[in-house]
């Protein structure tokens, strides 16, 4: 190889070679072929871009993880309540008050006394009922 700088820049094009080699070379893409190929490439590019921006399953999973954890916890608590009952409520049926019969007797003796009836039935409303003489 010469070292006198002959390879430092490109040679001038050779028109004869260009004509001869060009004769047996396939011509460039025709306009409609180039347009078709360009459309196919851009369609693939759009598909790839859409796929790249669509979240992956693990991203979706990570996004919903806190809500899913809360829902799971709530489900466990509710299941526990259903199966074992609430610690805040009594598991047996409410007992009948032993004084029910006596109370009925007292109310029966004063049938028109609304205040007495109200006191015995446990009505704790603050509203005052109009006073009425027995």
């Amino acid at each position, binding site marked *: 190889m010469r070292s006198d700088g002959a390879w430092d820049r490109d040679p001038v094009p050779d028109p004869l070679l260009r004509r001869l080699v060009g004769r047996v070379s396939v011509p460039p893409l025709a306009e409609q072929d180039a347009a078709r190929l360009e459309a196919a*490439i851009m369609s693939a590019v759009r598909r790839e871009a859409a796929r790249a921006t669509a979240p992956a399953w693990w991203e979706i999973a990570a996004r919903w993880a806190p809500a899913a954890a809360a829902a799971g916890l709530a489900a466990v608590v509710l299941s526990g309540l259903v199966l074992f009952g609430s610690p805040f409520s009594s598991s047996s049926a409410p007992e009948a008050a032993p004084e029910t019969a006596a109370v009925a007797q007292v109310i029966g003796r004063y049938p028109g006394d609304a205040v007495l009836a109200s006191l015995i039935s446990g009505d704790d409303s603050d509203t005052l009922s109009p006073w009425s003489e027995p």
Partner: protein
Amino acid sequence: MSPTEGAGPRDHIAADAAAVERVLAGDAEAFAPMVRRFLQPAYNVAYRLLGNRQDAEDLVQEAFLTALANLRSFDRSRPFGPWFYRIVWTRGLNLRKSLARRAAEPLESERHPGTADPAADAERTELADTVLGALAELPERQRLIVQLFDLDGFSGAEIGEMLGLNPGTVRWYLHQGRRALRERLAPFQEALDEE
């Protein structure tokens, strides 16, 4: 002039960098002007390598998608073309290997249709056969470099970047290839001059 030059190289570097920036930001349409600009030269490179239109089109499409997938690794202070042609070239070599095609096959000739003059047709056929033979006799690297430089208009630097060679080495191969072709094709110079 480089096949991808038009405006100044600096203008192209800036335009390419801006387009790449937009594509990376999610604007796929910003890739369209780049596809339009580099389609034909990329097809020429692909065709020189594979020698088949359909394979060349497939390779070009694959190369654009590879470029898109690797856009983050593209150095935006440099022109897009050589980086992209390098992708076309390396993917083309892999594809060719997988297709198990010989490199000499690219000389798929498209003869001119026959004319009313059988003698002229015969002469043209002889010329085409001689050119094809002369090209086929060249070592593959020389042949590809001659075609890319003299036919497709790539610069020595662009070819060097594509093939992973020093530009000086590319020019040396070009010189060797041209010399061999000129020797073989010299008898046809007069015929061509008369046309």
